[in-house]
């Protein structure tokens, strides 16, 4: 049996799944200390259940996201080695930085050495500012980490009170801004992660749960909690991933559809393509800072069921949430009330709000049906804009190879899977208006927890080897090194990389029979003056993301 727990802003959902069946589902209020919420959920789920029969617990948590969003992390400073290139002022670094000399080029060759006096000066400055968390980021450090290492050692030796992290340890992604920001937030959230792990372990022990614990990642895969301590950022923004996977679990395997998850204050749109959620090409962004984290392509709208209706300058408009819907005891009319009034939602009787809707219509000098149509059209209008955004992300995915361009047949789906309270109502309206197929799964209210429970561990490694320079690197932090054996042909490179992939897969508890997909594999002749000096290989492998089982009842 599998347990999935999704910690949301207002509610924490939990499900217990056996085979293709949801045995239990619970909803408890989210508390300030997340471990308490988990405890509450587990208490209900495990009632009359033998904890030894639980094979795995998976959490989707907002812990790291919240720490960063609410600025509850220690201040960090960056030591940057940009070398030739764009002006760092025009790049998006997440914290204050100092520019140092020293540079590496794209093939990992040293262009310029480090000046330790500059390092000292910068460190003294940060010490003065009471900034003790230091990131060292050098362009192309994944191809050659020597300069990052040199500076790191110098700082550790001379500033023992500093906590230092290098960008290549965190990620090997070909994007130094994302690596630097990733290092910054990894350093800043690591302690909180360890604390969280301690607390969760205690909670699990309390419930006699000794099964493995996984955390859901932003790309919809899972990660053993021990590994997540090293890569805490992987766990941000897992909510939309959880809901997309939950939506998938309630449908068929090859589902291609738009998933719409309408909460109280926000609405998320995601895309399922052939049973796989669409990923953002470049990765996640937090507080407008790009991160080296794979995540779902999600388009969000700051509107939800509790969005209130107001009259402004004689026109109807939307305003932020003031409470729950009027029909269930809230202070003002909301989008949910409109759905109830029109009969698209049955959570309360329309009679409860009839008077208020009519009064508002009268104030606007229109009829109540005109008013409700106006409101729903405004909401749908904004949704359509966001839908266009996510379709564009999909259609404009870059392609660097001929076969990618030739295979890019992209027909927009006309199928909507609705999750969250008001989604059903909106979905029905949408279906009538646009003639789409609309699916409202039975477990729509706890789809996120289902997604977490059924998510599979995922791994994507992009391997790069330069035989002339005798180096290899990957997109995974610290997974890089020197080639000790010559890789002459692509098959040699595949064999070598396959060992690396298998070792990492094992570490991350990937199933032995996991489907591994080759994203690309190519060899480049390094030709200088008419002679082949070596080869560069690039291979991308990933386990096919998705869910473990599909639930019995679709709708």
């Amino acid at each position: 049996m599998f347990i999935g727990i999704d910690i949301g802003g207002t509610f924490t959902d939990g499900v217990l799944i056996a085979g293709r069946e949801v045995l239990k589902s619970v909803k408890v209020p989210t508390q300030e200390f997340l471990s308490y919420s988990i405890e509450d959920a587990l208490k209900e789920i495990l009632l009359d259940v033998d904890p030894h029969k639980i094979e795995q617990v998976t959490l989707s948590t907002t812990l790291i996201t919240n720490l960063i969003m609410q600025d509850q992390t220690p201040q960090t400073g960056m030591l940057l080695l940009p070398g030739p290139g764009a002006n760092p002022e025009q790049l998006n670094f997440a914290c204050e930085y100092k520019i140092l000399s020293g540079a590496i080029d794209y093939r990992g060759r040293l262009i310029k050495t480090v000046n330790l006096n500059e390092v000292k000066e910068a460190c003294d400055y940060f010490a003065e500012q009471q900034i003790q968390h230091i990131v060292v980021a050098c362009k192309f450090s994944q191809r050659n980490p020597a300069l990052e290492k040199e500076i790191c050692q110098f700082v550790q030796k001379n500033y023992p009170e500093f906590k230092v992290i290098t960008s290549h340890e965190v990620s090997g992604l070909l994007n130094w801004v994302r690596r630097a920001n990733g290092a910054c937030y990894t350093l800043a959230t690591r302690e909180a992660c360890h604390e969280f792990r301690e607390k969760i372990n205690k909670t699990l022990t309390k419930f006699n749960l000794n099964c493995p614990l996984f955390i859901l990642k932003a790309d919809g895969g899972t990660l053993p909690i021990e590994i997540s301590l090293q890569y805490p950022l992987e766990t941000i923004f897992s909510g939309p991933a959880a809901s997309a996977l939950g939506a998938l679990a309630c449908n068929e395997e090859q589902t291609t559809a738009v998933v719409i998850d309408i909460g109280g204050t926000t609405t998320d749109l995601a895309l399922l393509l052939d049973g796989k959620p669409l990923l953002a090409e470049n990765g996640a962004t937090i507080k407008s800072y790009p991160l080296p984290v794979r995540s779902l392509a999600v388009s969000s709208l700051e509107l939800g069921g509790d969005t209130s209706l107001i009259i402004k300058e004689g026109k109807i408009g939307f305003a932020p949430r003031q409470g729950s819907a009027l029909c269930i005891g809230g202070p003002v009319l909301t989008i949910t009330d409109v759905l109830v009034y029109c009969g698209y939602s049955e959570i309360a009787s329309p009679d409860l709000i009839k008077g208020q809707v009519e009064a508002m219509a009268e104030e606007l000098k229109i009829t109540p049906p005109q008013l409700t149509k106006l409101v729903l059209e405004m909401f749908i209008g904004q949704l359509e804009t966001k839908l266009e955004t996510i379709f564009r992300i999909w259609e404009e995915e870059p392609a660097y190879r001929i076969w990618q361009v030739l295979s890019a047949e992209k027909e927009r789906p006309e199928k909507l899977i609705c999750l969250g309270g008001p989604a059903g109502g909106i979905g029905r309206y949408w279906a009538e208006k646009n003639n789409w197929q609309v699916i409202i799964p039975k477990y729509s209210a706890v789809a996120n927890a289902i997604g977490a429970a059924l998510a599979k561990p995922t791994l994507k490694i992009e391997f790069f080897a330069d035989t002339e320079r005798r180096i290899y690197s990957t997109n995974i932090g610290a997974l890089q090194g020197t080639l000790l054996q010559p890789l002459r042909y692509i098959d040699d490179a595949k064999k070598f990389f396959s060992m690396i992939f298998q070792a990492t897969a094992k570490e991350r508890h990937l199933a032995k029979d996991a489907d591994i997909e080759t994203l690309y594999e190519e060899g480049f002749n390094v030709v200088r003056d008419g002679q082949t000096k070596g080869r560069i290989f690039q291979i991308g492998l990933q386990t096919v993301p998705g869910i473990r089982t599909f639930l019995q009842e679709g709708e």
Partner: protein
Amino acid sequence: MSKTGLIFFPAFDWAITPTHPEREERLLYTRDQIFEEGILDNKSIIEYSPRLADLKDIQRVHFCVPNITAQTTSAHFISAGSALKLGDALMTGEIKNGFSLVRPPGHHAMRVVHGNRGFCNINNEAILVEYLRSKYKIRKIAIVDTDVHHGDGTQDIFYHDPDVLFISMHQDGRTLYPGTGFIEEAGGPGAYLRNINIPLPPHTTDEGFLKVWREIVKPLLDNFAPELIINSAGQDNHFTDPLANMQVSCQGYAQLTAELKPDLAVLEGGYAIETALPYVNLGILLALAGKDYTRVIEPQYEQAEQKQSVQVNRYIDKLISYWHDKFRQRPPEKEELFMKKVLYQHSRSIYYDTDNIREQQQEYVYFCPDCPGIYQVISQSDRTIGKNFGIKGISIPIYACPICEEKGKEMWEREKRDRAYDLCFLQDKKNDHYLVDHIGK
């Protein structure tokens, strides 16, 4: 919207041959540099996916012999299509400018295509120009070719078109492939001074490169006042290029881009794939996006001859004063340029270096006081290997007058069955209608 559109298509699975300069590796390090910089996350740069061009987009420009399929691969369709996609994004106002950073290149491909010349089969910029004119009814377009090699293909295609100003600054044809691009090649009789060549001496540095831009190209553009500027952004004027002898640096290219402000830039040549391309491409992209490019200094910069020799200075000054004089003079009337005849005739021989083909051509342009006039070409390739083809092509200009339009159609009806040729082509740009007749000997 002030966004710069980018299509990056390095064609990691396409090469002419495994060790050819046009091989998979060419944009590998450019990819590394541009991705590593993190600038693609900048909101002012928007990356688009490449797309394929249509057959019609190619027919609008070329007479491909014996057909388009024989002269192209999918990579060519993607390379051309990418420029078109950015053209659409530009015209719909999604982007303020764009960079089609793609392979394979195209500026040596002429109107008639018997094979590959200078690594090119079809001309990406010409396909772009004709697409934009046909779809958006743009009239005046300027192409500025900053590749080190003369853009002879683009010159050929627009040589008789008064609405397209083609300017090529390149290393002197006496010292470099393709051996053309002299000042005397200044446009056909109906498009005189719409084709400007600026052959630069070897060892020209940033100084000369920018001086020529500021003193010849810029005033020309100001005077022509095009609705759109396209840059054939070759990068082989770089001081490390293995196939040429110039001394331009990344800063020279970036600065030129910043001042030229092309609406669309399309990558052409450039074969210093490590020492130049990663930096020059980055510099051009930053310049287009209005970002600081002054820190993109290639590690080898100190090895460049940063000071231009006195001889080069003198030569460039002479070039500048030649063009200044030319612009001051009143150009002869069109009738005079046609030497008061109704038909302009020109014969020449064209060599395809990559495919080792020799082509013989006769071109004809019919004089018309009201429009560019009907263009006709007869071409024969005498390749030693494979089949040799004789073709005839008739082209009705996009802005043809009704009389010439009729005349062109009549000519086609009359001549399409001429058994002297293997193939007859009609390129009716005015009605965007293209026909081929396979006659066979």
